[in-house]
C-alpha cells in the first residue's frame, strides 16, 4: 500500500535539489548592483551558472533530510569487515576544531606554527614507539598511498644497491586487498600471487618457491583479510630477507594488534598505518584518510620529503631532497599530509594512553570472537579456530536455500543494521566478513546475533527465498539495480527540459 504523496510518514521521498527549483525564486533579497566596469577584459561569463532557483527553507530541509537518510556509525551498528568502522570519539573532533589547529595554513611562516609541527612530530613519535620502527613518513594521504610510499622507498633502496634492473617482481597473497597488486604495478613491478594454505594463511612453501633474485618485495597483510594472524610471519620475513627482498606489511588491520605486537619484531621493512581505522578518525565518505608509513633502518634513508625535524631553534620541515641527510624517494603530496587526521589520531592516542590502545586491540579481537562463537553453529565459519578482529563466514549455510549472501545482507538492512562486508575476501565462496570493533557493547552484539541467527533459520526453513529477494522493505529504496548502475551509470544531473 502506498500513500498519495509516496511518503511513509516523515520519511520523505526526496527529489534532487535541481528538481525542486522554481524559476525566479531566490533565498536572499539582493540590491541590484550599480553599474560598474569589470576588469575581466571581455572574459566575463555570459551563460547561466546553473544553480537551482530555490529558497532557504527548501535548501535546509533538503540537506537535513539527506543527512537523515545517511546510515553511519553514529546511527547504527556497522560491522563492515575490513573497513574498521569504529566509533569516532567526539573528543577528536573537539581537538581538531581548536582555532589554532583548524585555521593553521601551510603557507604560514614556520615560526607561527611551531605547535602544529610539534603535534605532527608527536604523532610520528608515538607511531614509531608503538611499532618499534625507527622512521615514519607522515605524508601519505591514505592506506594505498602508504603502500605506494613504502614500495617507492623499496624501489629506491634496490636501485641504490644497483639491482634496479633485476628485482622487478612483487609477491602478494591471493587474499590481499586489491590495492596491494595495484600499488606494486604502479611502482613498475610485476605482480605474482601466493596461494593460501588450508588454514587461510600464506602458503610458506609456495612463497619460498617463488622467492629469488628477481623479487623486490613481498607484501603481507597481518592479520590477513580472513581475520587470521599470519602465525608463520617470522619464517616469512626470514625467507624474504634471505632472498635479498624487502618485507612490506599492509597495516590495514593494525587495529587488531596495536599495543600487542611490535611490528619491528616481525622483521617488517615498511608498513602503512591507516590512521582512519586504527586511530578512529572518520572515513568512508566522512573524511579523508591518512596512511603514515613506518620504515626499517634499511629503508629509512629513502623516506619521502617533507618531514619534521627539531633542533635548538625549534621545529621545521625538511622540504627538499638536497636539505636531507638521506636519499628521499621523492614527494608524495602537496604540503605535508592530512594534518587534520593527525590531530584526531594523536588526540585518540593521548586520550587512551598505551594501556588503552592495547585494550582496544584486545576488545576488538574479543568482540569478533564473541560473534564467531555465537554464530558458528548457525552460519559456516570458513576456517577453524579463533579469529582476530573480524570473523569470516562463507555461504555454505545457505546452500540449497535459494538465498544468496547478497539477499542475506539486504535482509539485515531491514533489521536495522548496516550489513557486513560481502563477497570479500575472494578466497572463500560468498564471503560474509564481520568486524564489530571494540566500540560495541555486548548488548549491541547480542541484538545483532539474534537477527543474524533468526535470518539464518528463516533461510534454512525453506520457502523464504522470495521474502529475502524482496528485502530491504523498510529502507528509503528497495533493491537497487547494481548491474544497471555499473553498466550505464548516470553521474551528473542534466536539465531534461534544456535538451
Amino acid at each position: 500500500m502506498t500513500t498519495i504523496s509516496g511518503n511513509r510518514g516523515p520519511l520523505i521521498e526526496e527529489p534532487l535539489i535541481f528538481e525542486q527549483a522554481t524559476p525566479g525564486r531566490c533565498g536572499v533579497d539582493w540590491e541590484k548592483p550599480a553599474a560598474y566596469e569589470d576588469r575581466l577584459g571581455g572574459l566575463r561569463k555570459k551563460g547561466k551558472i546553473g544553480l537551482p532557483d530555490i529558497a532557504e527553507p527548501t535548501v535546509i530541509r533538503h540537506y537535513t533530510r539527506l543527512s537523515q537518510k545517511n546510515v553511519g556509525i553514529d546511527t547504527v551498528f556497522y560491522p563492515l569487515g575490513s573497513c574498521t568502522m569504529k566509533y569516532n570519539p567526539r573528543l577528536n573532533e573537539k581537538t581538531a576544531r581548536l582555532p589554532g589547529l583548524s585555521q593553521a595554513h601551510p603557507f604560514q611562516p614556520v615560526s607561527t606554527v611551531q605547535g602544529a609541527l610539534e603535534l605532527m612530530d608527536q604523532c610520528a613519535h608515538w607511531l614509531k614507539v608503538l611499532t618499534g620502527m625507527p622512521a615514519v613518513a607522515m605524508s601519505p594521504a591514505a592506506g594505498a598511498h602508504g603502500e605506494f610510499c613504502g614500495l617507492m622507498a623499496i624501489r629506491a633502496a634496490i636501485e641504490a644497491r644497483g639491482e634496479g634492473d633485476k628485482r622487478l617482481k612483487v609477491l602478494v597473497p591471493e587474499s590481499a586487498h586489491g590495492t596491494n597488486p595495484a600499488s606494486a604495478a604502479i611502482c613498475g613491478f610485476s605482480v605474482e600471487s601466493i596461494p593460501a594454505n588450508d588454514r587461510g594463511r600464506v602458503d610458506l612453501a609456495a612463497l619460498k618457491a617463488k622467492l629469488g633474485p628477481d623479487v623486490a618485495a613481498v607484501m603481507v597483510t597481518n592479520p590477513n583479510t580472513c581475520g587470521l594472524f599470519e602465525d608463520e610471519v617470522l619464517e616469512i620475513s626470514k625467507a624474504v630477507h634471505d632472498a635479498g627482498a624487502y618485507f612490506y606489511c599492509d597495516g590495514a588491520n593494525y587495529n587488531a594488534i596495536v599495543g600487542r605486537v611490535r611490528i619491528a619484531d616481525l622483521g617488517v621493512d615498511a608498513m602503512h598505518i591507516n590512521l582512519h581505522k586504527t586511530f578512529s578518525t572518520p572515513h568512508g565518505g566522512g573524511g579523508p584518510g591518512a596512511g603514515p608509513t613506518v620504515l626499517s633502518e634499511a629503508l629509512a634513508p629513502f623516506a619521502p620529503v617533507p618531514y619534521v625535524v627539531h633542533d635548538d631553534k625549534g621545529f621545521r620541515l625538511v622540504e627538499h631532497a638536497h636539505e636531507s641527510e638521506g636519499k628521499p624517494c621523492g614527494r608524495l603530496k602537496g604540503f605535508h599530509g592530512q594534518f587534520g587526521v593527525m590531530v584526531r589520531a594523536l588526540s585518540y592516542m593521548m586520550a587512551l594512553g598505551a594501556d588503552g590502545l592495547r585494550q582496544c586491540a584486545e576488545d576488538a579481537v574479543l568482540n569478533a570472537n564473541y560473534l564467531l562463537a555465537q554464530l558458528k553453529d548457525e552460519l559456516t565459519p570458513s576456517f577453524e579456530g579463533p579469529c582476530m578482529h573480524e570473523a569470516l563466514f562463507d555461504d555454505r549455510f545457505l546452500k540449497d536455500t535459494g538465498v544468496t549472501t547478497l539477499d542475506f545482507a539486504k535482509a539485515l538492512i531491514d533489521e536495522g543494521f548496516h550489513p557486513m562486508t560481502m563477497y570479500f575476501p575472494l578466497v572463500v565462496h560468498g564471503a560474509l566478513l564481520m568486524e564489530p570493533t571494540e566500540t560495541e557493547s555486548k548488548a549491541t552484539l547480542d541484538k545483532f546475533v539474534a537477527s543474524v541467527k533468526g535470518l539464518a533459520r528463516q533461510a534454512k526453513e525453506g520457502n523464504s527465498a522470495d521474502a529475502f529477494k524482496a528485502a530491504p522493505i523498510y529502507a528509503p529504496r528497495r533493491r537497487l539495480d547494481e548491474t544497471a548502475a555499473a553498466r550505464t551509470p548516470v553521474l551528473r544531473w542534466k536539465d531534461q527540459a534544456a535538451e
Partner: protein
Amino acid sequence: MSKTYFTSEHEWIKVEGDVGTVGITDHAQGALGDVVFVELPAVGKKVAKGGDAAVVESVKAASDVYSPVSGEVVGANDAIVDQPALVNESPEDGAWFFKVKLSNTSELDGLMDRAAYDAFVAGQS
C-alpha cells in the same frame, strides 16, 4: 578440426591450428554474477601461460583472466567491451575474450578436457 581445453582458473581455449580462442566458462560467469566491465589485451601483446591477460568485473568482484597458453594476442572481442552482458549470456560461445597464436602447443597437454573440467567443478562445490 578444433579441440577445447579448460583450466583450473575457469578459462576455456578452443584451438584451431596454432590459434586458440580464449574465454571464461559458464561456471565462471555464474560465480561472478552480472558482468559489468571487461578489459581485453591489445592485439600484438605477448602473453605467458598463467599470466594476466584480461580483466572481468562483476557486481561482486574484479578478476583477472589468465592466458591458458603462451603466445601473441591476434584478436580481441570488442563486442563484450561494449556489451559486458554477453559474457553472462553466451560465455562459451559468442563472448570469447581474445585469440592467441600459440608459441608452444605442448602447453596444451597440462589442460583439462570437458569431462575432466566438469569433474573438477563438481569436486569444488
